[in-house]
């Protein structure tokens, strides 16, 4: 061992440089290479700076509007904030009750949540950019993966937007099939939402039952489209295939199975004192907050906003069917559960009417611009073969323009804002994601509640992070 006095300044410099090379190596391993950039980016601790940081309390923009009820925490004195008594913890991104990779930075005072900052982007895969590289014929394979619990709604919003730009209509049978599939998708999504909500607040058996009934719906999806999710079934110009033989019997069986299951859930949960205690008055959003944050769907309807795109801005002829829009009164987690359960019943009612009233006819638009010729013609005619080839290699030519089209998804308004400049690929496709708006309202919902209620409020919001991050 040498004395400390023996170490020369030159040695110290060498040591520092050695440390830097270790850091450089690490930087090389962790940096993301962006094509076209020669320079390496400076190393930043991306987990505790900038967007990841909880702002100073007086600058926090999240609480401008909060009007919902605050916690009645009789055991926490309403003291003025003492910084030493508060701690900031992270819930997620790897936490089972955050429904994916949502990260919540929570400022706690004892067990009371004083501030929340949702931090998103952990699942961002640049799907809007990807959409610009895919043709209109391929686009629905991309959007179906955004909100992976409502793939049919995503495909429908995309297809309707493209059809709006093209100015084409689809046959009535295609419309009926689209409505049938999206409404069954709503059932599957709400069943999953009820199941996970039950599990998050301790009703573990609800998880088993919810998935059991969802399986019946997914079996029908698999029979029709070949896949359980990410179907690429609804496409611009119609649907990919007609319904399978004997689908009417499947639907009748499905309606009975799900209705029986829903009755069971209600027996299990509706009067359950623990469930009521955990959900009533939790995660309240007022109607005005919903309108300001762009909250739609079951969340807004649980707050008493009578607005359902299926009724007011109908698409695919959904206004022909007879169904009701369930509304809540208090805008809390319990009302959201009830609204979802009732929406399952209403969607099944629509499915029942479609079984009785589905028109015969083609399931694709007769327009040769979007629909390839039938299989038989390809064997006979060279032109038909070329036509088929052109649609699946170059894609569909769409005239320039801008279009917005939205459908009522299970979590609210799913919208597609598309800009076309001609050609076979969209110039820009923006996705209006309902979960993105819902995540934005979490601070309003959760501030000044207990941490256990935070989990219940999040579960009742039912965000899908694939939709939030896209």
């Amino acid at each position, binding site marked *: 061992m040498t004395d400390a006095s023996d170490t020369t300044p030159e040695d110290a410099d060498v040591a520092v440089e050695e440390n830097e090379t270790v850091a450089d190596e690490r930087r090389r391993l962790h940096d993301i*290479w*962006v*094509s*076209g*950039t020669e320079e390496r*980016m*400076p*190393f*930043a601790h*991306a987990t505790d*700076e*900038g*967007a990841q940081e909880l*702002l100073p309390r007086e*600058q926090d*923009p*999240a609480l*401008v*509007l909060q009007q919902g009820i605050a916690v009645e925490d009789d055991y926490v004195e309403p003291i003025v904030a003492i910084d030493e008594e508060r701690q900031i913890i992270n819930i997620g991104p790897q936490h089972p009750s955050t429904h994916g990779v949502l990260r919540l930075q929570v400022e706690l005072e004892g067990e009371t949540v004083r501030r929340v900052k949702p931090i*998103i*982007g952990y699942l*961002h895969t*640049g799907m*809007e*950019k990807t959409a610009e590289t895919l043709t209109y014929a391929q686009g629905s394979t991309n959007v179906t993966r955004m909100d992976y619990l409502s793939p049919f709604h995503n495909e429908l919003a995309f297809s*309707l937007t493209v*059809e*709006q730009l093209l100015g084409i209509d689809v046959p009535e049978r295609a419309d009926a099939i689209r409505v049938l599939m999206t409404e069954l998708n709503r059932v599957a999504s709400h069943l999953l939402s009820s199941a996970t909500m039950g599990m998050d607040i301790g009703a573990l058996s609800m998880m088993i039952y919810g998935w059991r009934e969802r399986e019946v719906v997914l079996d029908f999806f698999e029979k029709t489209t070949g896949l359980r999710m990410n179907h690429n079934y609804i496409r611009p110009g119609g649907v990919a295939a007609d319904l399978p033989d004997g689908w009417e019997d499947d639907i009748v069986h499905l309606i009975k199975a799900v209705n029986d299951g829903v009755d069971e859930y209600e027996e299990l949960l509706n009067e359950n004192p623990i469930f009521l205690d955990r959900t009533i008055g939790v995660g309240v959003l007022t109607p005005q907050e919903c*309108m*300001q*944050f*762009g909250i739609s769907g079951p969340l807004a309807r649980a707050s008493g*906003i009578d*607005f359902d795109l299926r009724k*007011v*801005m*109908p*698409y*695919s*002829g959904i206004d022909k069917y007879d169904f009701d829009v369930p509304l809540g009164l208090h805008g809390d987690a319990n009302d959201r559960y009830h609204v979802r359960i009732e929406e399952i019943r209403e969607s099944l009612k629509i499915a029942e009417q479609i079984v009785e009233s589905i028109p015969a006819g083609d399931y694709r638009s007769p327009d040769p611009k979007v629909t390839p010729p039938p299989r038989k013609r390809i064997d006979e005619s060279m032109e038909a073969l070329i036509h088929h080839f052109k649609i699946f290699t170059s894609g569909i030519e769409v005239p320039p323009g*801008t*279009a*917005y*089209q*939205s459908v009522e998804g299970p979590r609210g*308004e799913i*919208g597609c*804002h598309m*800009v076309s400049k001609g050609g076979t690929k969209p*110039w*820009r496709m*923006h996705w*209006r994601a309902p979960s*993105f*708006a819902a*995540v*934005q*309202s979490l601070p309003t919902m959760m501030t000044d509640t207990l941490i256990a209620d935070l989990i219940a409020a999040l579960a009742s919001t039912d965000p899908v992070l694939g939709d939030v*991050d*896209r």
Partner: protein
Amino acid sequence: MTDETLPQENTEDIEVVAEREMTGVASIDALIEAFPDVTFTAHSYASSDVVYHMISVPVSHWVDITQAAFDAGFDTFVDLTAIDHFAEAPRFEVAVNIISMTEVQRIILTTRVPYDNPTVPTLTDVFVGANFYEREAYDLVGVVFEGHPDLTRILLPDDWVGHPLRKDYDIGAIPVEFKAGSADL
């Protein structure tokens, strides 16, 4: 950037051909009356009998007109996005999508800003919900929202360089090194 060589137009003079006259919507008529000096240009799109209007407004009146629309009943925020019209003169477009629940009407207000000054005043004072959407537009397209309370990246990491949804941003690729199966080995 090729954009710098393009002619920069005055953003106040956006001319969009009106496809159909705006009629029969009381709140939009009120909007037009409130701003007599502003030229509203509108598209209407119909799909399954649902009509919505797309209105171009100059960026100098962006907040005023949105506030007026809010007061006229368009009080529900739906969506805000930015579009890169690469190689067109005012390069960036910002579109806000709002609806009136009482009249069941949807309008999409749009404005254009040039490449050398892509600054739009924030709408967070009118709609609190514009906060995350403006952060997303800043993150992915690089439009700066003046007066935003917390304009940081939202989907991408803080140390990300560039704005991916710009048209001159390369789609990128990660080089894959193939170690086996080469003829040299």
